[in-house]
């Protein structure tokens, strides 16, 4: 009896010893880590294509990369992950490439650590190009100009999309990624059926919209329902408003200058845009719950009053993803629909504000090239488009794929836009676009800061 206990303990002892040894091996490794040269990531080793017999995608479809694995990391989880997996299933079956997608709610925080730690995924999905731009500067992103067929890309994307994917690399400009999904942010959602029953008409100009807002207020409801609460990101829906109005009250060149930081927030153009916005936001007859509730209402809860019977509010400006917050029983095209946020000044045409996901490549292997090539085709997102909620930025994505009239009109809106601009706050450096811009707008709306003070505070984000 005693002997068996003894042998058990010695066994444990051996086990522990082996663990401590592995541990100490790790420990010494980590000490050596910072002093040694930066380990060469597979990124820098450039395997040039062996022959021009066909694009990587063609080769993959012939089954050349059967059994290979491609890791992918992105911010979407849950239902979106299911839709994504459904859209790549066909490709995986045809080529035998296994795309292992890993979704994390903490994507923004984790991707930097992974890239720095040398365990970057093969492909990463960035919802904010600003974040990719900062990683591209370190030189760890593969330059796609050498990887993908440029002529094919030019045919399949509007030039503005390609311009937006060109970023500063370690030495010179690189093509840091390709656009795979987009969403439209110039949409005003409204409860269609009741809207028509009440005899209202969709406004075509800003003045018509303001007149309708006043009309609805007289009839007894606040027209708008606005919420900007979003946890640590509180304030971001306000930035969409400012960007939309900027595009409608000043030139696209000024907008670009503003996004780059050359046109300060304290300039008359930006101030004017916020003032136009305030005419709705700061009027307690126009906003559901009064302007005080804007800051405390979650952006996802904001549309809820539109679906009460009778509706307690009528308009909600938000990107097309907001439909996932609508009640499951509400039907698109029947119960709700959207109209384009009307132009303010006709000389600026019909600008459209978009956002989207850009896919960047970190490891250059033939099968990864094939998958990237696949993601530039409309086919890669077809089934997601069909199930609703996203707009394909590629030209070869047919309008027939959209199963709802609403999505189809959205895709057309993007194609017909006189000016297409990306969500400015996503392009600005994080300190401004995801920092002072959010906070400054929240302070202004909640009344803790005057407009001038708030704009000065937002501008201060550029300094440090």
């Amino acid at each position, binding site marked *: 009896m005693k002997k068996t206990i003894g042998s058990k303990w010695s066994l444990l002892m051996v086990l522990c010893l082996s663990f401590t040894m592995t541990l100490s091996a790790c420990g010494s490794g980590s000490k050596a880590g910072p002093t040694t040269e930066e380990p060469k990531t597979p990124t820098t080793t450039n395997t040039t294509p062996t022959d021009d017999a066909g694009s990587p995608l063609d080769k993959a479809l012939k089954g050349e990369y059967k059994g290979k694995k491609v890791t992918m990391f992105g911010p979407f989880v849950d239902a979106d992950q299911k839709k994504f997996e459904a859209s790549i299933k066909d490709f995986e079956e045809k080529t035998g490439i296994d795309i292992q997608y890993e979704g994390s709610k903490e994507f923004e925080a*984790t991707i930097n650590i992974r890239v720095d730690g040398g365990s970057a995924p093969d492909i990463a999905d960035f919802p904010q190009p600003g974040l990719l731009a900062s990683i591209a500067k370190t030189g760890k992103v593969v330059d796609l100009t050498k990887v993908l067929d440029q002529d094919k890309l030019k045919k399949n994307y509007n030039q503005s999309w390609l311009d937006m994917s060109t970023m500063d690399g370690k030495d010179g400009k690189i093509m840091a990624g390709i656009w795979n999904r987009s969403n439209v942010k110039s949409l005003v959602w409204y409860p269609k059926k009741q809207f028509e029953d009440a005899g209202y008409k969709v406004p075509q100009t800003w003045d018509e919209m303001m007149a309708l807002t006043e009309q609805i207020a007289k009839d007894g409801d606040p027209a708008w329902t606005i919420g900007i609460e979003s946890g640590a990101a509180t304030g971001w829906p306000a930035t969409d408003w400012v960007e939309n109005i900027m595009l409608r009250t000043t030139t696209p060149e000024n907008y670009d200058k503003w996004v780059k930081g050359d046109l300060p927030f304290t300039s008359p153009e930006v101030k004017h845009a916020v003032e136009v916005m305030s005419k709705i936001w700061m009027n307690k007859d126009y906003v559901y719950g009064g302007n005080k509730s804007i800051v405390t209402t979650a952006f996802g809860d904001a549309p809820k009053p539109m679906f009460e019977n009778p509706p307690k509010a009528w308009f909600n400006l938000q990107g097309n993803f907001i439909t996932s917050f609508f009640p499951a029983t509400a039907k698109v095209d029947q119960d709700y629909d959207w109209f384009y946020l009307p132009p303010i000044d006709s000389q600026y045409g019909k600008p459209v504000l978009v956002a989207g996901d850009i896919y960047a490549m970190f490891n250059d292997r033939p099968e990864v090239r094939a998958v990237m090539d696949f993601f530039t085709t409309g086919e890669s997102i077809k089934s997601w488009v069909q199930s609703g909620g996203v707009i394909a930025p590629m030209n070869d994505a047919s309008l027939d794929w959209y199963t709802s009239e609403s999505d189809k009109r959205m895709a057309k809106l993007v194609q017909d836009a006189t000016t297409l601009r990306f969500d400015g706050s996503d392009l600005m450096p994080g300190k401004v676009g995801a920092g002072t811009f959010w906070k400054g707008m929240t302070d202004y709306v909640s009344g803790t800061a005057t407009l001038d003070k708030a704009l000065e505070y937002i501008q201060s984000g550029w300094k440090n």
Partner: protein
Amino acid sequence: MVGKKKKKGSKLVVNIVLGVICFIWLLPTLGLLISSFRPATDILQSGWWKVLPHQEWKAGDTIHLSKDVDLRKPIDVEGKTYSDDQLKNGVMADGSRLIWENRRARDISVQEQGWVTSTKLTTENYLNVITGKEYTIKNADGSETVEKGTGLSQAFWNTLTIAVPATVIPVLIASFAAYAFAWLRFPGRKTLFVLIIAMLVIPIQVALIPVLKDYTSLGLNGSYLGIWLAHTAFGLPLVTYFMYNFISQLPKDLFESAFIDGASHFNIFSKLILPLSVPALASIGIFQFLWVWNDYLVSLIFIGNQPNVQVMSMKIADLVGSRGNDWHLLTSAAFISMLMPLAIFFLLQKYFVRGLMGGSVKG
């Protein structure tokens, strides 16, 4: 006699105070429990306490006003005038409350107070969390397919696979180390001990990227072995310190007599120290287990989100959806993830308090 009475009285006061503290302490958990059984729409609309019987305004008669009433001027209701704001918030008139029922149609509701309980309860939140949510995906032809997501069960086993070795390994290593520091005399003993204690103040965040780099080159990323080692390393300083405190307090005579009888260090450790330090082992085991079970950061960095290794805390974060649209599921998920720590605590609780004292009281 008098003294005894006084003692009894003060005991009562102590008990009441403790009871109140316990109640306040438990209240958020109770709220969470009730919320977890409420339908999602109810959670959004009202607080969990509305489940309890409470007084509420109930709709009674309705007063119809003319459609042309201007809402921005004083509004005339049955001889009295009110402002729009008053009617929005509700205004008292003859023991009942006037409030807009339908402002657009100019309907005012006359409300009376009454007792209400809203007892709409559901187990849907738990079903969604345990068996997985159902996703409806529209096909090209307009038909819909329902796909079932994964529930918590896989993540539960993953977490258990991580938590048990990540508790046993550091506690074992630390007990050996603590014995050596307490009873063996070897050069550099104090320096080494101080070094280990100094590790307590180093935040684990500074080690993440260097360790990740090593893990990448060793191929340990996303493997169970990798995360066991990570948790072991991050937990060791505290566990060693705790075990040292306990083992160094054991009576010296015990070891001397054992030595005289010819026992080796290993024998003393396995036959004397381990049985004597069960309370300390149990309490530090609970600590370490809870830390590993609830951990999010270390798992996020070293093991990632692949379904075959994903831990509970990360799975739960994913359940709310990309944009947080299903946050009501957090209520039931939190309770399910709480079950295991609770079970461990109740199993080992008799050691827990003894162990806590063991580290602090001398002699």
